């Protein structure tokens, strides 16, 4: 149950108290956020860090007042929030610029909505566009700008309304590496130089490095259900250098907090539907796992630092973690202190022939109760064909809204191992 949260203190800009976000009700319930408690003080730069699906963006929207918590309270300067937060604003991942308005009109619109007279808003917009380094582009339309420049417009527009709390929703993740790096630096310059009236920044990201580079404090989140699993103070002086030992140390610490949590739970295989604790199949195609194992086999001792490995594979952490999870689930890899380890089984797989691999995968995934349950159900059937609906009905009490996705993943894995397949014409599963 909810822990007793401390009362709001006056110097807090923002405080969240026992925030829950629950979709649906009864057996179809899905907990997106569970018992979130946190606070942000004036002068702080806080990062919400976590994998996709952990509810960090939802939490940001609840803080901005775009979304409402199912229970719990958001206090802003000690006052409970009951709608759109008038002191907060958001910079969006996908920029959210109005494509039919040019740069200046986009910035001006935010001011127009506040009833700022035409002449004033015009000069203010021009000045802000200048501040973010876009002078000369006032009359350009968003489609004429690069991603980095569009996000600058996003920042200019957000600053136009002079928010106390600036919320950033993965603002750099849709940009190319160089633009992102440049824009990060420019934002930090504005923030540290106190040239904007912003009191605090809250940034959502799944990029650990970015968080360590910018934030004073990192709040780590995990999914299923979305919750806070740890908090790390960064406390490094700006400007921070990626090569510094202190920086690396904190990155590793954050990795241990984020990855460690996901992977210990992954040990559990779960039960067949209706028989107890269930386990979700990770969103990983098995051929991606094959690629991962091959790459890992090339490393010395079959061991690699997850963080550097992701970089070497040019993969986002978000995409890599489910593949690692699948590998752990099947016993091909292990995770130890932020390192990825190839098991004996994994090495055998990487060296096996195509046919041998199929057989290995088949025997490994049959250990998973959900797969073996499907397989046995099909074997028991007279013509070895069973309607998809049958499986969905039995999985639904456990997986709710994720049922279809889970069954699709199971079918995908079963197909890969040539255990069973799906007939799209009749909507039936059948034995291969």
């Amino acid at each position, binding site marked *: 149950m909810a822990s007793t949260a401390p009362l709001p203190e006056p110097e807090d800009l923002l405080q969240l108290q026992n925030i829950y976000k629950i979709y649906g009700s009864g057996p179809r319930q899905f907990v997106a956020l569970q018992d979130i408690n946190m606070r942000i003080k004036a002068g702080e730069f806080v990062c919400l860090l976590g994998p996709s699906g952990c509810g960090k963006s939802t939490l940001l*929207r609840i803080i*901005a*007042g*775009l979304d*409402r918590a199912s229970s719990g309270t958001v206090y802003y300067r000690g006052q409970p929030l*009951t*709608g*759109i937060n*008038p002191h*907060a*604003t*958001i910079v*969006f*991942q*996908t*920029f*959210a610029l*109005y*494509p*039919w*308005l040019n740069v200046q009109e986009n910035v001006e*619109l*935010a001011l*127009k*909505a*506040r*009833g700022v007279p*035409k002449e004033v808003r015009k000069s203010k917009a021009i000045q802000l566009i200048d501040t973010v380094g876009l002078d000369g582009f006032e009359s350009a*339309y968003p*489609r004429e700008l690069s991603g980095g420049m569009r996000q600058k417009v996003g920042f200019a*527009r957000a600053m136009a*309304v002079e928010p106390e709390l600036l919320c950033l929703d993965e603002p750099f993740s849709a940009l190319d590496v160089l633009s992102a790096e440049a824009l990060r630096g420019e934002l930090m310059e504005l923030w540290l130089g106190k040239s904007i009236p912003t009191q605090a920044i809250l940034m959502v990201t799944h990029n650990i490095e970015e968080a360590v580079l910018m934030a004073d404090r990192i709040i780590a989140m995990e999914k299923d259900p979305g919750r806070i699993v740890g908090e790390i103070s960064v406390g490094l002086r700006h400007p921070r250098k990626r090569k510094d030992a202190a920086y690396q140390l904190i990155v590793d610490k954050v990795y241990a907090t984020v990855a460690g949590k996901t992977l210990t739970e992954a040990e559990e295989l779960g039960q067949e539907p209706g028989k107890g604790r269930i386990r979700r199949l990770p969103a990983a195609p098995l051929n991606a796992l094959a690629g991962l194992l091959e790459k890992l086999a090339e490393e010395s001792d079959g061991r690699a630092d997850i963080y550097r490995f992701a970089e070497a594979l040019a993969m986002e952490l978000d995409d890599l973690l489910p593949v690692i999870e699948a590998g752990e689930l099947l016993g091909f890899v292990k995770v130890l202190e932020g390192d990825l380890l190839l098991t004996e089984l994994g090495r055998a797989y990487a060296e096996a022939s195509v046919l041998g691999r199929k057989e290995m995968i088949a025997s490994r995934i049959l250990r998973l109760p959900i797969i073996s349950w499907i397989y046995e159900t099909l074997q028991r059937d007279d013509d070895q064909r069973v309607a998809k609906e049958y499986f969905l009905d039995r999985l639904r009490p456990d997986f709710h809204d994720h049922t279809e996705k889970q069954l699709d993943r199971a079918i995908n894995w079963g197909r890969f191992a040539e255990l069973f397949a799906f007939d799209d014409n009749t909507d039936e599963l059948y034995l291969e």
Partner: protein
Amino acid sequence: MRFFRFGPEFRPAWRLGIADIIILLALLGVLYVGVRMAISAPAIISGPKISLSFWALPWYTLLSVGRMFAAYILSLLFTLIYGYTAAHNRTAEKVLMPLLDVLQSVPILSFLPVVLLSLSSVLPAGLAAELAAIALIFTSQAWNMTYSFFQSIRTVPRELQEASAVFRLGPWLQFRKVELPFAAVGLIWNSIMSWAGGWFFLMASEIFTVGERDFRLPGIGAYLQTAASEGNANAIIAGIITLIATIVVLDRVVWRPILAWAEKFKVETVTGEKMPSSMVYDLLSRSWIFEKFIYRGVDPLLEWIDDRMARGRTRSLAYSSPSLRRSRYFCLWILGITLGLFSAWGAYRTVSMLILLETQDWLAIGLGTFATFLRVAASLFLALVWTVPTGVAIGTNRRLADLLQPIVQIAASVPATALFPVLLMGLAQKPGGMNIAAILLMLMGSQWYLLFNTIAGTTAIPQDLRHTTALLRLSRRERWKNLILPALFPYLVTGSITATGGAWNASIVAEHAQFGGHTHTTTGIGSLIAMATARGNYPLLLASTIALVLVVVAINRFFWSRLYRVAEERYRME
């Protein structure tokens, strides 16, 4: 290809829901009220005198175009209000969207006699005919525009909605700066389509005559009909040229500039897509006077309006309260009960009127519906036979496309109903001529949808699939079976839905015509409606109109929507 945007948005509902039944019953109520009023309509209505002088043409053209504009403005207002309400109010949506769905699939033209008769019972005949024409064009234009607008508001990208909320734009600024621009392109395309479709109904209502009741309206449609009726070839040619010129000029001066202007509202531009260009638009945007007019006149006016609207109502920042929601539910209940009572009353009165009909009347209705059904099927078949090969040829051959495009555009722009009298001139005297003329009219009204859809479907076949098929050296037969027909299937289904809708509509004018002093008829539900209107047999009029509506709605629900679902699931190109 322009002029049409490949059929209206079709939103199939899979089964006949309770809402549909209530709406159909309410429609019955409206029909019944119309027929009740029609009983007191004057028995003899003398139509206008149509002059065949060439000098009358500009005036007639002006009258016709005026009707089109009046109806379009009405449709646009309706679209904005209805679409906005349905998109923003979940409660209203539950009533408004099913209603729109039924209205979209009802053959509009079948209401013309009832509307004409009921209006002429309370208004002078000329005015009644004017209003009926405008109402008819309106009902042909409004639905797809409304649906497109509703759909657009609903699909405004989430982050743009959130930005509007975070920056507190308020309902008015959100409407003007976000929703309207986002909906603009779709709305304009649908307007163009509605406008083209509107000519069909305008022409139909300008030439509508049954028995002693002459509902014709002075206009270019009536001019053509009179010319054909008197066999005046010169006047026919002059009329058709004027009509085509009018349609083309309006396209160049009104629609094309608007389309070119709307380019800036596109959220993303697909590379390789031809940008709509317009000379008139280029001319205007280069004109100094026009620029000054925008800068000094329009901009300050908009600024003033924004200011007033924003001051009046700022969006409440709080979430909606439970009491507000309760009062909404209350309103819904009141509305539902009223609608239910009206439907029940309508059903009761309708049944008590229908009891008056004899068995042979019902037999005639059944036979007529079946005959019309066969005609619709025949016209669809004929249309498919010529449009599919032609469309595929145009879609795969650039040179042919460049050659045929202007011809097809002009041919498609002529409303079939305008040419109907000319058709009759050649066919009315021949045995079975009326039957052939009816099928031809249906064909002319519906074939273009199919042609444009086929072209669209062909050009949408991915290049690599085409190359693969070429590499496999499939025979012509195999190529059609494995590539072209499956790829075209969804397009043919949407095209056929629109095409058959048009064909059913055409039956009202196609099966019963007064021409050269004679009345020509052929068996069918359309001629039955016309005959009932002429003779003042109101129960028969009511029964046959209902029969037509029900048959068309049922065919849509049970046949087309199933095919549509198959098309969506099986044959979609991803």
